[in-house]
């Protein structure tokens, strides 16, 4: 224990002696936030849309036909048919659907009687790009309905699409926050832990402690522990500062429960990434290798994580990759906790995946480390 703590203390002291590192580690993810927030406006695909159709009339059928052709053609949405509204809304909250379209029982009759027909759409506005796309697709399906069949053109007879956003209004930039936090976690994990073993090897300092009785576990666990400590603090700072920039006052929004949930996500995500980097890089002999490889891995893990584009619009192979990508679960969990204000219960699955992944990686890191010059 005394040795393990010595490794931790050595690492922390060295970190603190380089204040620039601290500053950069906080600034960079925030810059990402600003740049990313302004740079992505692409077309999305396969956004899951639940349809609760309670009307069997011709107009409802017509709308469904159009939605099906959107599903088959530009593939903006993927349709799911839900029998009851409660089930569909539950799915929306869990993130299974990006939107829920509700066609009430008297929809066709109202149009026929030239009354205002109202359908409802519920959107997951924690991901504004996705929910906008869903809204546009649905609007396209609704356009013209009512004028075609109605003999007399009557403005009021047009079906109204009432769109209800499920969560309190959030800006697109704000929904990037989980992505920015995961970015901070990655940078933290990359510049601590394995980076420091490679640096010690490179500078030759490694030689002096490999000839002491210190064990492999002391070294690996010590470095992971100090890296975890540093990264957790950095991630919280980044979360705090970037929210502040976007006008969110976390102390008004978060409860102790959600803070605890975020803490768990950050800790587990850090361990996943640190462990992963350790397994892949502990035998590198030049810090530049860590830099190059880390930069690459950052992109590879970040973009398929759903931090920017919803996972649903990826091609199948990327989707498959994102299901084993720990960042997917971190982003999903943080978004649920942070944007949607859900408690621990809603992110059980994510936490379980992260915990298992972290455990495997940390164990593998110890095995991969070679206690030899």
């Amino acid at each position: 224990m005394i040795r393990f703590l010595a490794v931790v203390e050595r690492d922390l002291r060295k970190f603190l002696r380089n204040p620039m590192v601290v500053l950069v580690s906080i600034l960079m993810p925030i810059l990402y936030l600003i740049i990313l927030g302004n740079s992505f406006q692409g077309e999305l695909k396969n956004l899951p849309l639940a349809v609760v159709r309670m009307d069997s009339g011709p107009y409802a059928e017509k709308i469904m036909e159009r939605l099906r052709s959107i599903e088959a053609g530009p593939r903006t949405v993927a349709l799911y048919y839900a029998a009851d509204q409660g089930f569909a809304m539950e799915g929306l909250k869990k993130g299974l659907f990006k939107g829920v379209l509700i066609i009430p029982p008297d929809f066709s009759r109202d149009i026929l009687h030239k009354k205002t027909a109202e359908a409802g759409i519920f959107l997951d506005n924690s991901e504004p790009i996705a929910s906008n796309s869903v809204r546009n697709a649905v609007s396209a399906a609704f356009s013209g309905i009512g004028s075609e069949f109605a003999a007399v053109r009557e403005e009021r007879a047009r079906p109204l699409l009432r769109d209800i956003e499920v969560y309190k209004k959030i800006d697109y930039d704000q929904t990037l926050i989980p992505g920015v936090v995961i970015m901070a976690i990655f940078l933290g994990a990359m510049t601590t832990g394995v980076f420091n073993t490679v640096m010690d090897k490179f500078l030759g300092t490694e030689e002096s402690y490999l000839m002491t009785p210190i064990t492999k576990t002391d070294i690996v666990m010590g470095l992971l522990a100090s890296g975890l400590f540093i990264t957790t603090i950095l991630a919280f700072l980044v979360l705090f500062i970037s929210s502040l920039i976007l006008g969110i006052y976390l102390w008004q929004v978060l409860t102790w429960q959600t803070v605890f949930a975020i803490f768990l996500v950050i800790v587990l995500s850090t361990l996943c990434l640190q462990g992963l980097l350790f397994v892949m890089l502990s035998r590198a002999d030049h810090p530049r290798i860590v830099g190059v490889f880390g930069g690459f891995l950052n992109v590879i893990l970040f973009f398929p994580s759903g931090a920017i584009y919803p996972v649903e619009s990826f091609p199948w192979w990327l989707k498959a990759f994102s299901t084993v990508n720990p960042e997917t679960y971190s982003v999903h969990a943080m978004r649920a906790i942070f944007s949607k204000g859900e408690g621990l219960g809603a992110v059980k699955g994510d936490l379980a995946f992260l915990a298992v992944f972290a455990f495997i990686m940390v164990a593998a890191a110890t095995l991969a480390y070679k206690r030899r010059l």
Partner: protein
Amino acid sequence: MNAVETIELTKTFGEVRALDRVSFAVKEGELFGLLGPNGAGKTTLIRILTTLIPPTSGEARVMGINVVERQAGVREKIGVVAQALTTDLDLTAFENMDIYGRFYSIPKKERRERISYLLGMVGLKERSKDLVATYSGGMRRRLEVARALVHRPAFLILDEPTIGLDPQSRLVVWDMLRKLRQDYNLTILLTTLYMEEAEALCERVAIIDYGKIVALDTVEGLKNGIPEKDTVEIRFKEGVNKEDIVREVGALPFVCLAAWEDEGLRIYTDKGPASIPILLERFKKIGAEVTEVFLKELTLEDVFIRHTGRPIREEEAKKVSFFIGAGIPRRFGR
């Protein structure tokens, strides 16, 4: 018990045979030197003895413990100063020592006392709270030695402890090592590429070249083991009787050979500088007036040349190994 014992120790890096069937022993309490030029295999040998790399074949024991089978046991017993400077630049001297002490699980109170004593011993007490980055090379080297002693090892191993130091700092390190040995009966094994260092400091010296130990003995023993002797060269005023002089000198018991060369008389002697007054007295008696006397004592350099067929080129050695001596491309070794 021997502090070090190796049997046919061999280490190859690909094609390079860094150590070639090395068998030798260091006795307990001894100050033992490994003398060899760059690339001779000194660091490789030290790294095997300190459990950092495994030998390709052969066996080594340190303090009676096998370095391959019981690495942890060896590590507890030895203090090591590596060839490269390995203290952390962004920690203070105290922090460096304290963390090192904890790697050996030394309890806090004992650690504090020990560190303050050792820093005092190497003259760094006043600077103990400064970052090592602000130290000169010599200060850093002394810190490395102090750090290696923090757990009171019975056996201290130093790989080129004075490399990169000016002559004065070198003397400081020498004095320190001598004192350590006297006060604590420490066994010391050091490597060096400086003849004077081996000669001034070590009781026994092994000369290592191309991975092989080519000679091993006390400094005296090594010198006696080769036919060359100390030489005294004497120049005279013009017009002396050369034959008389040679005859006179040749009769002296400590003179092995006397011969005229272009400049003066060259005398090979086994009495070294002590022969000079006797010689001068003789010349005075026979009325030969002496103008200049040169003494060239036999050094380890001569021994080295005798065994390896070439001198150690010190100037080059210094430059090269300070920077890359310990940083051989590791990739090949793994």
